[in-house]
């Protein structure tokens, strides 16, 4: 298939791997931000093509993984209401809340439907005026414009039975939070190509300058990733820190003006809590005052007690690149895709799912580079804490 096969090509991949070997002189640790990139890396064995010393750690860019348990539980309560049609993208269905997931809600009689676009949910609302249709608006800046369009369309059509349960998050504040951690060992980021397709690159400039960290906006195929790593390593080796675009066939520095306008018309920046990471200021989007009537949390108010995450799940450390999935004491034992403790084990962009699916049955080599001391200590402490908890 054009525009895909050439980016999965073995010869081109090898060429970039060789380029890397030629320029690298010491160990570097890079974080790929997006869960889609993580899956590509593990699936195609991109990490195994890197020269010794160049380490990729997996980032927080899995929207399913970072959706807080509280919102999930809220989603389940709304989906259980008679008269509600709860619509969602497919990969939210298996994600566990406190004690359920949407597949179970559906099995118990909730009307839960998978849609491929939020506009499909608007169409359902139009077809079934006597039912309340809720769309689970999960995602980074990538999904926000389409969700904004759905709200605008519902408003134009005067639909009173359509709403969004919003769990929209923003990438740059999460990267700030990761860099602010004293144990952080990330020296460069491969930023998520699709997020930047919408938002452009300007948001990353302050981050680059403040933390002197290279950011390379990177695509999702093996050749993209290897080229992105090569660009980031070249910056590190040359002592530069800039925003560069590897994914130039899709991303423009100014982003997509139409998509951003839609997003800005409907949403406003809010504080949000991330599953595993906790509250991060200005890290989310919420419906603004003009479109507040489409907010499912207002339409279906409840005062259920705050939800609690499973203390055994180390997803927070995994999402910050501080713990590799297979190093988690619960991985493959207490936590499997059939019985997940946390979202990264079931999301199609979750790091734990990637290692389970593609690496489980063979010994995964330890990270090629010895992690910085602080990182190693954090991992050891996490393991000890989890072991103590399990005991």
């Amino acid at each position, binding site marked *: *298939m054009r525009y*895909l*096969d050439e980016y*999965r*090509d*073995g010869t081109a*991949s*090898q060429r970039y791997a060789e380029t890397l070997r030629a320029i690298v002189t010491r160990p570097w640790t890079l974080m790929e931000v997006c869960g*889609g990139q993580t899956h590509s890396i*593990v*699936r*195609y*064995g*991109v990490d*195994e*093509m890197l020269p010794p010393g160049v380490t990729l750690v997996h980032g927080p860019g899995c*929207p*399913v993984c970072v959706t807080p348990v509280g919102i999930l539980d809220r989603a389940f309560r709304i989906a259980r209401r008679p008269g509600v049609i709860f619509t969602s*993208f*497919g*990969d*939210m*269905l*298996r994600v566990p809340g406190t004690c359920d997931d949407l597949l179970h809600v559906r099995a118990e009689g909730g009307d839960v439907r*998978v849609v*491929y676009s939020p506009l*499909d949910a608007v169409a359902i609302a139009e077809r079934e005026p006597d039912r309340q249709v809720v769309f689970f608006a*999960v*995602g*980074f800046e*990538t*999904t926000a414009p389409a969700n904004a369009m759905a709200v605008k369309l519902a408003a134009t059509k005067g639909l009173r039975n359509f709403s969004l349960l919003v769990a929209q998050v923003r990438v740059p504040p999460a990267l700030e939070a990761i860099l602010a951690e004293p144990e952080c060992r990330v020296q460069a980021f491969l930023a998520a190509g*699709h997020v930047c397709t919408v938002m452009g690159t300007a948001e990353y400039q302050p981050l680059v300058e403040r933390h002197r960290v290279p950011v390379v906006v990177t695509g999702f*195929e*093996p*050749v993209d990733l290897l080229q992105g790593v090569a660009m980031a390593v070249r910056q590190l080796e040359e002592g530069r820190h800039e925003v560069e675009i590897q994914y130039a066939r899709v991303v423009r520095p100014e982003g997509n003006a139409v998509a951003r306008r839609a997003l800005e018309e409907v949403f406003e920046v809010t504080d949000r809590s991330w599953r595993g990471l906790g509250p991060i200021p200005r890290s989310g989007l919420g419906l603004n005052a003009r479109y507040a009537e489409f907010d499912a949390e207002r339409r279906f108010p409840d005062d259920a007690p705050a939800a609690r995450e499973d203390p055994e799940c180390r997803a927070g450390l995994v999402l910050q690149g501080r713990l590799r999935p297979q190093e988690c004491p619960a991985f493959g034992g207490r936590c*499997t*895709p*059939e019985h997940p403790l946390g979202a990264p084990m079931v999301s*199609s*962009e979750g790091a734990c799912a990637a290692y*389970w*699916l*593609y*690496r*489980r*049955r*063979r010994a995964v080599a330890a990270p090629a580079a010895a992690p910085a001391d602080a990182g190693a200590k954090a991992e050891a402490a996490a393991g000890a804490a989890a072991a103590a908890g399990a005991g």
Partner: protein
Amino acid sequence: MGELACPVPLPAGGRILLAHGGGGRMTRELVERLFVPAFRNDALAVLHDAAVLEPPGSALAFTTDSFVVHPMFFPGGDVGTLAVNGTVNDLAMSGARPLWLGLGFILEEGLAVDDLARVVASIRSAAHAAGVVVVAGDTKVVERGKGDGVYITSSGVGAVVAKRPVAPDRVRPGDAVLVSGPVGQHGVAVMAVRDGLQFSSPIPSDCASVAPPVMALLEAGLDVHCLRDPTRGGVATVLNEIATQAGCEIVVHESAVPVGEDVAGACEVLGLDPLYVACEGRFLAFVAPGEAEAALALLRARPDTAAAARVGMVAQAGTPGLVTLKTRAGGERVLDLLSGEQLPRIC
């Protein structure tokens, strides 16, 4: 039996009623006016409690399967073609020539008789194409809302023609793994109609009998060790089953697996892996290494398997039960079982 000779067709535009499954006059009308004329043959025409059949003079293969698909009709087939080809293909996978089918219909009250007639016509032509005869059947009707149009259970009997058993325990290190054509078509076709996905041209299911090419392989005397049709769970799932049953490791080359451009595109958009998407008219063959090229040449010379490909091999020494994929990009990964169905992803 006189009225059977010239059946009056069922009235068009009618609906299936509970009484059609009650065993009385309306049941008889349905059987005599719809099923018997469509599947006309001596064994069925007796309308006794069981078909009496002459043994073919070889070992028999026997299998049963149930078919529930929503929607009932999809590009390239319907629940009827599936019910015939699914069972016929299971027989072929055991090295048997399909002979006879028995069909159990569970109909939902309110089903349009025209839709049932369309399914029956599909069964008739699929059975004809597969060279199989419908010799027994049954019909029940469930209340509206308790079924999904038509459910069909089909059982089949075949005559084993393979000279040596065709089964996972005959898989040996070094065996070549062949696939008979592009994979993932059926799953994408059904998903597209089920979820109202619009492609510029509809992707048809590959639903078909694989008995003819399989019989050709066996009749050519090629040393076929194992056959399996990659239905539910697709190629990846079936390879895992065989690796486990045969106690061997299978290595697959991603770039060698044929996937149609349209199916690859649809899977890419939906975030699905075509290796896990169902086929209904393809098979995998494990063939002795010395005869792999001959088997591939034979398949490629036939129009129904012209796109057959050699996709991998059984490792000489490896981890029993493991399937490894050599990726297009030059890496390597485990090709594992999925824990449930594939779900389309967010972004």
